[in-house]
């Protein structure tokens, strides 16, 4: 009886979003007379940073400070339509919709400012601090608040914009089955080091090293947070979580947090992440979407590492001690991969 070390590797190509009905999302942007902007979305922020990222994108496009932008995701009944927060699509789909809406609102804001300054709107630039001025003549200036107030109370304009992002539904070729459902891929490569106890079947993850390519990291701290937490969830799916451990039998299914297992704070391993930024041509400011994809490479890497450690190939998740022990029994014991013996530990 012994504890065997194993190392597993996996790399993924992750399509951002999906293509059902073109996978569209809409955004509406408008200003208030005080020059602050509202971005209305139905896209839900469940902690992944949707509001922060769309706020940054709107501020960047409008040319106003980020604190002058408020993102309202309060109600999917009253907001513009969104397909939802899933498939790592939020930053990419909604971000693009926000850019389009913010560009339209910005154009109206500049027209309102041009009328007040008695210049051509094409000659106006924003400084990102709440001021609009004539290119090359910073003293010929008006604040975004003054421009919005003039639009509202003098000119009778709405400083507003509409945006939608849609990738037209891809037809399937009847001859070959080919289609082009997505335009943007994120990537990851991940190595898991773990130990398998051949007496208990338990798997203990020792360390994870990974590289994630997510386009431009629009908010690097949120990207890091998402990658760490998402990889943890991948590990949880690889080793612990299931609602039906003996599917299709419903027996022994968990009913509460005592029986639905997840790794706790004592079960986590160090995870060293390298974020690679390759801006996506069709992404909002190059962003893709580090959502669901951060969990995906962990599962095959863990399965490969278990195979590396004891020679048991497990094809259905999670990799429970019971499955490991049954595999060991079938193989007549642990069969560490030959290459493993040569590796220094």
């Amino acid at each position, binding site marked *: 009886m012994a504890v065997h070390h194993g190392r597993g590797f996996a790399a993924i190509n992750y399509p951002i979003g999906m293509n059902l009905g073109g996978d569209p999302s809409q955004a509406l942007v408008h200003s208030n007379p005080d020059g602050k902007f509202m971005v209305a979305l139905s896209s839900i922020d469940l902690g992944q940073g949707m509001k922060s990222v769309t706020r940054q994108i709107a501020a960047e496009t409008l040319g106003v400070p980020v604190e002058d932008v408020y993102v309202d995701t309060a109600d999917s009944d009253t907001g513009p339509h969104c397909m939802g927060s899933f498939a790592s699509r939020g930053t990419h789909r909604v971000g693009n919709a926000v850019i389009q809406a913010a560009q339209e609102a910005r154009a109206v804001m500049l027209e309102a400012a041009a009328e007040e300054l008695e210049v051509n709107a094409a000659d106006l630039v924003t400084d990102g601090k709440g001021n609009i001025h004539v290119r090359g003549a910073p003293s010929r200036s008006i604040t975004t608040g003054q421009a919005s107030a003039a639009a509202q109370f003098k000119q009778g304009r709405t400083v507003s914009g509409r945006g939608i992002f849609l990738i037209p539904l891809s037809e399937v070729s009847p001859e070959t089955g080919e289609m082009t459902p997505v335009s943007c891929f994120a990537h990851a490569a991940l190595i898991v080091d773990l130990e398998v106890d051949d007496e208990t079947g338990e798997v203990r993850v020792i360390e994870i090293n990974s590289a994630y390519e997510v386009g431009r990291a629009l908010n690097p701290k949120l990207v890091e947070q998402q990658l760490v*937490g998402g990889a943890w969830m991948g590990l949880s799916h690889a080793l612990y979580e299931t609602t039906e451990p003996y599917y299709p039998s419903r027996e022994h299914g968990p009913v509460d947090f005592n029986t639905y297992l997840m790794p706790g*704070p004592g079960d*986590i391993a160090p*995870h060293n992440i390298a974020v690679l930024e390759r801006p996506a041509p069709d992404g909002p400011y190059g962003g893709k979407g580090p959502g669901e994809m951060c969990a995906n490479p962990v599962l095959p890497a863990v399965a490969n590492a278990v195979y590396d450690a004891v020679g048991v190939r497990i094809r259905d998740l999670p990799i429970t001690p019971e499955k490991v022990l049954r595999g060991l029994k079938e193989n007549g014991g642990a069969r560490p991969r030959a290459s493993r013996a040569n590796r220094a530990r």
Partner: protein
Amino acid sequence: MAKTPIRFSHNREEKAVFVDEGANLLDVLRRSIGDLTPKYGCGQGTCGACTVLVDGAPQLSCLTLAETVDGRAVDTVAGLSDGARLSALQRAFMDNFAAQCGYCTDGMLMSATALLKHNPRPTREEVVEAISGNLCRCTGYEAIINAILDASQGGARRTG
């Protein structure tokens, strides 16, 4: 149903309420007192989202009979900050990005507050032990552990 009058200190303020027989502390805090910081998660003491301090010790308010806190001190996240001035622990949670959806955060803060009060210089293992009754679905715990260590006196967070 008979109502029982109880008095207790809620975040250092005296409160007197009538509670239903068998009412749990979580319901009393949320519905009678109006303190929504303790969260209802599982309702059976396995997730830790409802953690509050009773006489300084972390306790699962969903499993605590309200009547048992009569004459005692109950502390929640609502009492951690001084107005807009956050506690050092709350600031460390922000600085370390230790919250995503935020549902576990109040329970985590209370478990960590109790730890740091009794053990101002915890080891990483002691931090892990202190929050082992609090489930988090988003962060993978690392950021939370680092935040608590940062808020402690000279605690060493994991590097690399």
